[in-house]
């Protein structure tokens, strides 16, 4: 883990570390935590590295690279026994009480922790000594100014102050020296992160080399953990959730995206805009996606709906506060059967809430937002790869069933990054539903909302020759004209709602749930969204201890595959839900639709993702019959 004030290069430094590990054939999972702040407040980036694919993050930190005193204070108790802390030698005398960016409630809690541990610590040095004694932690105090001076000499830079930005790369050098990692993949990673800026690349490579050499000659093989490259032929990519969604949208044919800046969704739109010109197979003419930054989220969704009326696959991307503003538009799209996709990144809420932190409390909101009744589909991705494939499916469902689709993602997925085997593009299919062309209706009156058996009326884009149609947010007749007649209302709402039954019948259960483990296991865990990875890892550990459980990941809460869930949960002894909210929203939805209540609730709403250790500990307590019905998780800093 690397931590420091925002703006100090935590992100780029750790990214280089993560990429260097990837290049060396290792699997990587990275998690970013940051404040709603531009510069100065604490942020950190945690990277897990393994020869095997990684599904989630864990609580323990084996090597903590602290850019400042605060990072040590915040994370010291997370460092595992025998782990290491890299610290700036100049910060050792910092008085803990004088760190301005630590909040008073943090300081009070911290004092209590010290008392409980019987530790007296006024300065950082006191604290590190205590940790050393208690946990056998290795402390590597680095005289960064001296190392920087060496760098300055080598690159003929007179002003040392110009180089202080490179503390992140110095830390990187020390970290990789401690684990004795190869230099080559690191150099490649530095080049990737700093791009074509040759001078900057060179400066950083020098800084890396100097700190690496310093640490090798000073500490040698003192640190117990080592990292070795594992050459691999497998084609892998390393990406974060927002990129996966954006790529899914592009390949899925999204050609119009409107958005208003909001954390953490905006990264997706920026990525799309950066890559707005598209290569098309079998066509020399490039395609393109039009990305519109709007004046607010109301405009964002309504522009997307307006665009969707022309037949283009259109979407908007937002998080909770933005979605709150979009709700009226969503209802209009529902009422007028317009396929529009909302990629909804949940965060800590309500109101502004925890704007840069994780949350999973918007399931019910996504399912029910709007006055009145209309059909919609909600799907939830559980990991970054699913974000990609679901982004495509969202459009297929939207067009096939002519209704809004909400693709629920969360901050933990948006901002974490992971190495994957190259995505399989052959799996991708585009289904556009009943989309008319001019020839389909020649000579007859086109009824946009024609009553049909399935509830689906063939859809024509605006601009289709021979076709003129009407829409209204008011109740309307088959032609689309405003109509308040009672019988029409009864039939028209039924027509729209029937499409949801159709979706429920047609969409195979494999697209709506993932099942893990043994069918015959007596106990069942249910979850949705980003806890997926943590549950899978915890399940592996708990199975390894001889307990028998399986896991159902719900990917489509609306329409909920209720028969499937009723069947599976009906025979489970212990039914456990794991989700990132207070009210156990998925559990509530399942109870409502199947009559089956959960026996155990493992919940978390502190703004941090659920770790696999937390799930494991919670499951263990349950299996040992020691758990309360409701366990509230609170780890992560």
């Amino acid at each position, binding site marked *: 883990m690397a931590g420091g004030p925002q703006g100090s290069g935590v992100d780029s430094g750790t990214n280089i570390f993560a990429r260097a590990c990837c290049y060396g054939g290792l699997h990587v999972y990275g998690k970013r935590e940051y404040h709603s702040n531009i510069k100065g407040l604490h942020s950190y980036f945690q990277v897990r590295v393994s020869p095997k694919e990684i599904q989630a993050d864990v609580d323990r930190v084996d090597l903590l690279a602290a850019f400042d005193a605060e990072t040590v204070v915040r994370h010291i108790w997370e460092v595992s026994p025998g782990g290491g802390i890299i610290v700036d030698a100049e910060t050792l005398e910092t008085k803990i009480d004088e760190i301005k960016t630590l909040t008073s409630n943090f300081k009070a809690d911290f004092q209590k922790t010290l008392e409980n541990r019987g530790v007296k610590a006024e300065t950082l040095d006191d604290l590190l000594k205590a940790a050393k004694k208690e946990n056998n932690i290795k402390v590597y105090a680095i005289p960064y100014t001296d190392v920087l001076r060496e760098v300055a000499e080598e690159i003929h830079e007179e002003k040392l102050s110009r180089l202080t930005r490179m503390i992140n790369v110095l830390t990187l050098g020390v970290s990789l020296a401690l684990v004795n990692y190869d230099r080559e993949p690191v150099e490649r990673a530095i080049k990737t992160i700093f791009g074509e800026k040759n001078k900057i690349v060179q400066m950083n490579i020098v800084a890396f080399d100097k700190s690496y050499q310093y640490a090798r000659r000073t500490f040698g093989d003192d640190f117990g953990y080592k990292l070795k490259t594992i050459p691999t032929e497998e084609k892998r990519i390393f990406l974060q959730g927002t990129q996966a969604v954006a790529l899914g949208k592009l390949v899925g044919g999204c050609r119009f995206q409107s958005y208003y800046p909001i954390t953490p969704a905006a990264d997706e739109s920026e990525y799309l805009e950066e890559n707005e010109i598209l290569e098309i197979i079998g066509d020399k003419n490039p395609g393109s996606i039009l990305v519109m930054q709007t004046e607010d989220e109301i405009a964002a969704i309504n522009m997307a709906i*307006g665009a969707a009326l022309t037949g283009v696959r259109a979407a908007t991307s937002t998080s909770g506060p933005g979605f709150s503003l979009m709700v009226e538009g969503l209802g209009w799209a529902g009422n007028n059967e317009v396929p529009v996709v909302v990629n909804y990144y949940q965060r800590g809420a309500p109101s502004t809430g925890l704007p840069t932190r994780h949350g999973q409390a918007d399931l019910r909101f996504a399912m029910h937002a709007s006055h009145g009744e209309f059909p919609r589909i909600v799907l939830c991705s559980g990991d970054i790869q699913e974000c990609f494939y679901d982004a495509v499916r969202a459009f297929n469902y939207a067009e096939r069933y002519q209704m809004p689709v909400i693709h629920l993602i969360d901050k933990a997925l948006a901002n974490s990054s992971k190495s994957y085997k190259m995505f399989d593009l052959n799996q991708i299919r*585009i289904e556009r539903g009943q989309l008319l062309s001019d020839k389909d209706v020649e000579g007859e009156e086109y009824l946009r909302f024609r009553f049909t058996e399935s509830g689906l009326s063939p859809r024509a884009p605006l601009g289709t020759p021979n076709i003129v149609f009407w829409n209204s947010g008011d109740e309307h007749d088959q032609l689309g004209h405003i109509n308040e007649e009672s019988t029409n209302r009864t039939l028209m709402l039924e027509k729209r709602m029937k499409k949801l039954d159709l979706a429920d019948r047609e969409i195979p259960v494999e697209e709506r749930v993932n099942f893990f483990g043994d069918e015959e296991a007596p106990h069942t865990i249910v979850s949705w969204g980003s806890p997926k990875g943590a549950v899978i890892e915890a399940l592996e550990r708990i199975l390894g201890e001889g307990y028998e459980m399986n896991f159902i990941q719900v990917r489509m809460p609306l329409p909920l595959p209720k028969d499937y869930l009723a069947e599976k949960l009906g025979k489970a002894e212990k039914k456990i839900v794991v989700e990132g909210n207070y009210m156990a929203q998925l559990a509530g939805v399942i109870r409502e639709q199947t009559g089956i209540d959960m026996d155990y609730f493992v919940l978390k709403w502190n703004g941090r993702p659920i770790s696999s250790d937390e799930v494991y500990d919670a499951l263990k307590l349950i299996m040992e019959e020691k758990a309360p019905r409701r366990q509230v998780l609170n780890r992560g800093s």
Partner: protein
Amino acid sequence: MVLKAADYKSTYFADWCPGCGNFGILSAMQMALAELQLPRHKTAIFTGIGCSGKMAQCLNINGIHVLHGRALPYAIGAKLANPELEVIAEGGDGDGLGIGVGHFVSAGRRNIDITYIIHDNGVYGLTKGQASPTLELGLQTKSLPKPNINAAINAIAIALAAGYTFIARGYAYDVRHLKEMIKRGIQHRGLALIIVQQPCPTYNNINTKEWYGGEDRIDPKTGKPTPRLYKLEETGYDGVVHSPDETFEKQMAALTKAREWGDKIPIGVFYQNEFEPTYQDRIVKRIPNYLQNPPAKQPISDLQGRATTNITALLEKLKVTG
């Protein structure tokens, strides 16, 4: 086939009050569409909520009746996705200058090539006559319990400041003049605003047809009313920017005219500037084939339903091994 004005009228029953200015606006719209011979399938009108919003239902072109205050975002989304469409947005003063005023201002920054028509009658008719953003301070129309406590906003001045490149005013009962304004607005290259002064015979008993016509102001010499409305073009006023260096001067002149209200109310074209790049022009700078291959026209899959967007190069950029 030549389309007549009547061909642009849908089968929807226009349920406005007898004497409503909307009938005049509807006629002017039909006439303008017919004179321009706009293909019905390629023309789309997006309207907000209120009596004016029903215009989308009354016309025999694509008619999209949207949400209160949101005609502009829908219209913009459609126009940008398919620039071949002729797009008109329309709504009331409450719709566009109250609940939708954020979009009204923001649209000016983009100069998208659409036409926006605002019906201005000073009241929220469909909810029984509350004061709209254009009703003057202190006026007490029929159904207000107390005189209006808010001052009126000046939509023309706001539009000018926001960046609209065509700004005109018409009058619902001067159908021929209004038709010309609408035609010019549609033909304008860029974002066009047409404010239509419109009596509400049911709820606005102050700014009536008689008031606009000046029937309370009889000229003692002729014994005839002195109308409040006058036509800008008849005074020699020319709001058109003929070369970019005239821009400031024309804007100031328009602003001066925008301030006139009460005894003298100008109708006609206040300002027109076709030298500003439209949003489409700006997109073309980034996406050179945008107009030939706009979002709505792009194929996204082959006959077997396989995606045709090649994201391999993007994935290659994210590649770490192999």
